[in-house]
C-alpha cells in the first residue's frame, strides 16, 4: 500500500542499485588483482575466477544442494512463523497463556541451538525433521516478540472508536489490532529469515548428505577451498534473495510505521 517517501532522498532509483553493485564489483576486482599480484596460494584464498570455475566444474549437482537448503529454510521458516503468530496471539489474548508460555520462550532462547542439534539427530534421525526444528527454534522468536509488541501497539482510542459501533472482539481484531501489527510482523519476519538461513547451515553441519552447509564441510574435509567459497557465496546469495522476497512482500502488503525497529532475538 503506502510507500513512505523518505524524508531525505539523496539517491535516485538508478544510483540506489548502481552504487552497491559498483562497490561489490570493486571488491571482486581488488580480490582478483590481489591474488594474482601476490601469487596467493589458491588453497588459502582462491581468486574469484577460480571460484567461478569451481562452480561451473561442479555443474548441475550444485543446484541440488541449493535446493536442499532452500527447501529446509522454507519449511522451517513457515512452520516457525506460523507458530510465532499463534503464540503471539495467545499471549496477547490471555494473561494466563502469557504466564504459561513466557518461560518456554525464554528457555528456547537461552538453549544453544547448535548444542542441541546432535541430540535432535538422535531423536529424529538424519532427515529433514531435526533441521527444520533447529530452524524453527531460531526463527520463531523474533516474529513472536514483534507481533506481541505490534498487537499491543494499538491506540486505546482506536479501540474506543470501534466500540462506538460494535463491541465485537473479532471486528476489533481484524479492523484495528491486526492491521496495527502488520508492520511489526514484517520487521520480525526479516530478522526471522536471516536467522533461518543461519539455522539451516548450522543444522547441516551436524548431519547431512546434501545442502550448502554440507558442501562447506565437504570442501573443508577434501581441501577444496574453492568449493567452500562457492558454497559460502551461494549461501550469501540465497540469503539475499530470501530476504529480498520478504522485503518485497512487505512493500506490497504493509503500511509503514515511522521508527519501529525490529527486535533481534
Amino acid at each position, binding site marked *: 500500500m503506502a510507500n513512505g517517501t523518505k524524508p531525505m532522498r539523496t539517491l535516485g532509483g538508478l544510483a540506489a542499485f548502481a552504487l552497491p553493485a559498483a562497490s561489490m564489483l570493486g571488491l571482486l576486482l581488488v580480490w582478483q588483482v590481489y591474488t594474482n599480484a601476490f601469487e596467493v596460494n589458491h588453497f588459502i584464498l582462491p581468486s574469484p575466477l577460480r571460484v567461478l570455475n569451481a562452480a561451473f566444474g561442479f555443474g548441475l549437482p550444485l543446484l541440488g544442494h541449493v535446493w536442499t537448503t532452500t527447501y529446509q529454510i522454507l519449511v522451517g521458516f513457515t512452520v516457525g512463523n506460523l507458530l510465532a503468530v499463534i503464540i503471539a496471539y495467545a499471549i496477547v489474548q490471555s494473561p494466563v497463556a502469557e504466564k504459561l508460555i513466557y518461560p518456554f520462550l525464554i528457555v528456547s532462547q537461552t538453549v544453544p541451538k547448535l548444542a542441541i542439534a546432535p541430540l535432535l539427530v538422535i531423536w529424529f534421525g538424519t532427515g529433514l525433521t531435526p533441521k527444520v526444528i533447529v530452524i524453527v527454534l531460531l526463527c520463531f522468536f523474533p516474529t513472536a516478540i514483534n507481533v506481541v509488541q505490534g498487537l499491543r501497539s494499538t491506540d486505546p482510542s482506536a479501540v474506543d472508536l470501534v466500540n*462506538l*459501533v460494535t463491541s465485537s472482539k473479532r471486528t476489533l481484531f481484524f*479492523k*484495528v489490532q491486526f492491521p496495527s501489527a502488520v508492520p511489526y510482523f514484517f520487521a520480525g519476519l526479516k530478522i526471522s529469515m536471516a536467522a533461518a538461513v543461519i539455522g539451516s547451515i548450522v543444522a547441516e553441519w551436524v548431519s547431512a548428505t546434501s545442502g550448502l552447509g554440507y558442501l562447506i564441510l565437504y570442501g573443508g574435509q577434501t581441501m577444496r577451498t574453492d568449493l567452500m567459497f562457492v558454497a559460502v557465496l551461494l549461501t550469501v546469495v540465497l540469503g539475499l534473495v530470501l530476504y529480498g522476497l520478504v522485503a518485497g512482500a512487505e512493500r506490497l502488503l504493509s503500511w509503514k510505521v515511522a521508527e519501529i525497529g525490529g527486535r533481534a532475538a
Partner: protein
Amino acid sequence: MTDSQAAGTVPPFVSFEDVGLTYAAGTSSAVEALRNISFGVGQHRFVSILGPSGCGKSTLLRLLAGFLRPTAGRISVGGVDPEVARSTGMLGVVFQSPVLLPWLRVIDNVAFLLELKGVARTEREAIAMQFIDLVGLRGFERHMPYQLSGGMQQRVSIARALAFGPSVLLMDEPFGALDALTRDRMALELLDIWKRDQKTVLFVTHSVQEAVLLSDEVLVMSPRPGRISVVRPVALGRPRSKAQRHEREFVEHCKRLFDDLDADAALGV
C-alpha cells in the same frame, strides 16, 4: 403529553447526577478527576464545556460515551446508560487527538465507522466524500494520514464523526489545531449541521469566544478535582454569525465567562 412532562419535570436528555470519577481508585496512584458533577442537557441543545487544562473535560466526555464508568453517581443519555446508548449507535465522538488509522486512506478513515456498521462500499464512500468536502479536504481523499498536516488530520476525524450520523455529538477540542479562519468556517458548518440534523452537541473548547458563538449554554469547570462551578446560558439569538462577535451582548457574555474562569483560578491558588 404526560403529567410529569407538563409539570416540566421530564429528565433532561443527558443527565449527570452527583457523578464522581477517580482514576485507579483504591491504589496509591489514585487521581480524583471529577467530583459531584450534576447537570442536564436538553435534547437538540448545543452545550460547551470550558475549563482549564487538566480539569477533567475529556474525562467527562469519556464517561458520557461509556468508555469509563463513574466511580460515583449516575449518568444517563436518552434515558439509558451511556454504554447502552452507545450500542445503539447514537453517539459520535471527536477525540482530542485525531485517532486516524494510519493504514487507511482519508476516504476510508472517514467511512470507517460506516464500514463497521455494514454500509455498502459505494454508499459509504459517497457519504464520506460529502463530509470530506464539508471539511474542505476535497482532493485529499486518496492521501494517507501521514501526508496530512495536524489540522487536516483533525478535520478528517471531524468528518468521520459527522459521517457516522450520530444524534449525540461529543467533541473534544475539535478545532484545537486549526487556524483562526478555518476554525470559524468549521464552527459555522457545525452549527448548520446541528440545526439541520437536530443533534445534541457537547463541545469542549478552550476558546471563550467559540463557546459563546456556538452554544445555548456553557458549563464552566474548575480543577482538582473537576467540578462544575457555574452554568451560563447564552442569551443570543440564532442563527449566529461571525459578525455578532463585535456586538456588545456577545462581548459581555465573553467577559462574564472570563471572569468565571478567573474566579476559579483564584480559588485554586
